[in-house]
């Protein structure tokens, strides 16, 4: 702190009202100047240097949307953080008792200031309403932003060629079924590029959460419940799938990876896998959006939960594993 700075604060103690209000103006203008300069430096610095590398990247439309949304929030948050930190540091430096400044003044002026209070409330309200509006747009526009929308999604893609992929969470792995390719079930997650995917996420036991990190997709896997999330791929490459809802002791080990390939590669992989797994697929329960545990058998088999409304009698009356079509282990 230079001598002049200290002098101008000390002048507050002088009785004349003019010098006092002048010093006050100095404080305000100094604070605003520091804030504007730092915000003007840090905001673009962040947006252009760190922004493009913020997870989850740009592998899908929803990931790109989440990245953009995060960057917008941070560009708004940085000046807010700076405003308060600058004020606090300024106060700590300038108005410490050990500097021997003037005695603070009490009274009505120190107890509140209508314009400051109204200004504060209005500013925060405007920021918050903007954020809520922007967040809603960023949620609705990319079909739910990759989040699980439950069994009756309301923000659905317009594309006619949506690839449905069923994600089945179970303790402690994910398996995937491709209903448009005969409903085969595999532990590999392969999806085509430039395609809208509908992930139908369900569980066979407890709650899991399907988190395809680079795809910007997250949807909880609930037992006997179909949770749908949409995304559209736009880059090829591998991505990580992790369980992000605590599901028991091996929750930490419940991860694998998936891959986005060209549509042709995907077509050939899917048809080849369908053929290769044909014998397994016959033993699986027929494809359904949800499955319920076999309450009669002790072998952990699963039945398709096609009956709506759910009827235990009909389900329990279904053939037992090994007795014919439509039964067997879902694992």
């Amino acid at each position, binding site marked *: 702190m230079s001598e002049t700075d200290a002098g101008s604060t000390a002048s*507050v103690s002088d009785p004349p009202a003019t010098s006092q209000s002048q010093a006050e103006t100095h404080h305000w203008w100094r604070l605003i100047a520091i804030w504007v300069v730092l915000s003007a430096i840090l905001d673009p610095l962040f947006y252009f240097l760190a922004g493009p590398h913020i997870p989850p990247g740009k592998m899908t439309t929803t990931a790109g949307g989440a990245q953009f949304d*995060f960057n917008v929030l941070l560009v708004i948050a940085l000046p807010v953080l700076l405003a308060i930190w600058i004020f606090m540091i300024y106060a700590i430096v300038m108005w410490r008792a050990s500097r021997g400044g003037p005695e603070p003044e*009490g009274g009505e002026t120190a107890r509140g200031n209508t314009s400051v209070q109204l200004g504060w409330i209005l500013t925060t309200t405007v920021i918050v309403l903007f954020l809520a509006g922007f967040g809603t747009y960023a949620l609705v526009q990319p079909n739910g932003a990759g989040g699980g929308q439950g069994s009756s999604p309301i923000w659905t893609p317009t594309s006619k060629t949506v690839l449905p992929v069923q994600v089945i969470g179970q303790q402690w792995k994910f398996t995937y079924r491709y209903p448009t390719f005969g409903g085969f079930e595999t532990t590999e997650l392969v999806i085509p590029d430039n395609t809208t995917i509908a992930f139908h996420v369900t569980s066979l036991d407890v709650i899991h959460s399907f988190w395809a990190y680079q795809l910007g997709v997250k949807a909880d896997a609930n037992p006997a419940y179909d949770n749908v999330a949409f995304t559209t791929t736009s880059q090829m490459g591998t991505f990580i799938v992790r369980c992000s809802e605590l599901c028991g002791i091996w929750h930490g080990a419940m991860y694998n990876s998936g891959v986005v390939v060209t549509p042709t590669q995907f077509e050939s992989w899917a048809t080849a896998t369908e053929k290769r797994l044909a014998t397994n697929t016959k033993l699986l329960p027929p494809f359904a959006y949800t499955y319920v545990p076999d309450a009669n058998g002790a072998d952990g088999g699963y039945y398709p939960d096609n009956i709506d409304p759910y009827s235990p009698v009909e389900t329990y009356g279904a053939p037992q594993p090994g007795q014919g079509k439509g039964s067997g282990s879902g694992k």
Partner: protein
Amino acid sequence: MAIETTQPGGIEYPGEEAPTPLQPVSRRSEWLRPHAGWAIVGGVVGYLIGHWLGNVIASGYINVQGSGQNDVATVLGLSLGVAGFLTGIGALNYPLAKMIGREPPPAVPEHNWVRYFRMTEDHKVVGLQYTVGVLLFLFTGGLLAMAIRTELLSPSSHVFGPGIYIALVGEHGTIMMMMASSAVVGPLGNWLVPLMIGTRRMAYPRVEAFSFWIFLAGYGVILTALFFGGFPTGWTGYAPLQTQASGGMDSYLVGFAVIGIGMICAGFNLAATIINYRAPGMTWSRVPIFVWAVLATTALLTLATPTLVVAGLFGVLDRTAETAFFVNEHGGSNFLWENLFWFFGHPEVYIMALPGFGIVMEIMPVFTRKPLFAYKVAAAGMLGVALLSFFVWQHHIFQSGINPDMRPLFMLTTELISIPTGFLFLVALGTLWKAKIRFDTPMLFCLGMLFNFLIGGVTGVFLSDVPVNVTVHGSFFVMAHFHYTIMGGLIFALFAGLYFWIPKMTGKTMNKRLSKWHFWTFFTFFNLTFFPLFLVGILGQPRRVFEYAANLQTLNDISTISAYCLGASFFFFIINFIWSIYLIPHDAPDNPWDSRGLEWQTPTPVPWFNFEHIPVVLSDPYHYGEPDAPPVADLGRVLVSAGGAPAEAVGHGDVSPPGDGGDLDPRPPIL
């Protein structure tokens, strides 16, 4: 004008003639009267009876399931154990004596150390009991946190198995949440509120004491989870993993319900006290801001916590009586638990945050020598937070598959709640403006709280934004966020409050150098521990995992090593506390910080009745910087000047009505 100085009902003061012909129960010898030792005996006996009863009722069909355990026995054992504990401490003596038509012995002030191990009607003893109880919770949870961070030192090699790790995670989370829900309201709320509003007693002193002892019983119950193999669900206890889990889950459900009953009791008592027992002249615009914070918190304690108790009961029934509240296949819903839990769980977040706000706003004027800026906005903000906190719970389950059309609404309400929350910063910055800041330890903790809570609050906005939430939900980002708000906010505020009020609570001065060392190590290592975890979360590490991506090891190790230092920083407090209170005590002056608060105008140590005469409050406690400010209260003997020092004697032993009564609100005490 005579001023009514007695308050009706309740405690019989010694020396007064018994108003009733009923026979008092004869007083037994010291060691036969209820105390903590009998409580432990009662708890053990109750557990054994309950366990035996459970086996008699249910061992048959549990054996069929072949699970090797009997949830009915565990639940009954724990419940009867809590009942036995409370019987042992004497919680039932008063109602039972009333029931058989006898008059319970009057509350007599005890001055020996034994009173800290009894159920007492003195709110100051309960406050100190809560202080020790909360620190016990905090350090237990802290040790578990060290264990968790130890496991995360390496991405792939393990110190604990995944089973023990997940038990540690659940135990740490639950203990800390239980602790934090009473962290400030328990110790400081109970100790300070009667002194701040100028009353001699709580509205329901026995309910208050009950709330502490059941809180301690909850500690015992939740610790038993470790002996039953822990519970794998974390503190959120999601069904159906809850239904699937082993015996430790019973401890979680019973423990949370037990703590919940304690929270409800504490809330009712404080609300009734604040509303009904304010001294004459203590109008709503003169109530200290901390009391407003406690009042807003009590609304949440009494209205949100019953949901937790009910959810716990459902969970217990699902596990023992084979009901299906949370089982999708049998007509229940796992969303029911999520909604019930978070309907309690989000107000719970503000149960933890609001008292911290109150402490910071209460302490800052003392160290800035300025009035509190925007007092009414601060009070309204906290009530607004309390109200809005009931309308945001679904932001915890954005990705769970609930109806998506509610999502924009809950995003809006969640972001709206940041407006009243932000008033904390308006008040703090306004109070700092052209102040004369003294950097004593409590003030340092307040500034630290503001720094941390700002980061916690801003990251909360990121979490409330659904598209960003898709990435950060369930990751370490969430975990860092709520540690910044709860530990960086509430625990910093708790220590600000402890360092500020310990001279009044114990009558002893804390060592300044050790206090500052505590602050600086705590603040530095807190940020070094939790800031890297934001990055870890964004980079894709889910919560509660024991294995993580190898490229995140550096950040995790920084966090772990800082966590050890963070844990070690508490030794400064413990050593300071033992050193300054017991080993080399220095008597504290009555008002070491020159505060205008009513609680500081009492002699130290505070007498059993708090005030010799019920004070007549003349102004709010924030008239700093006004040389000719009115005294804060007429204490009957002396008027207290603006600086807090006694100015002039006006009365002689009894209450003298103020001469002109200019500032005096002539209302009689509200009964």
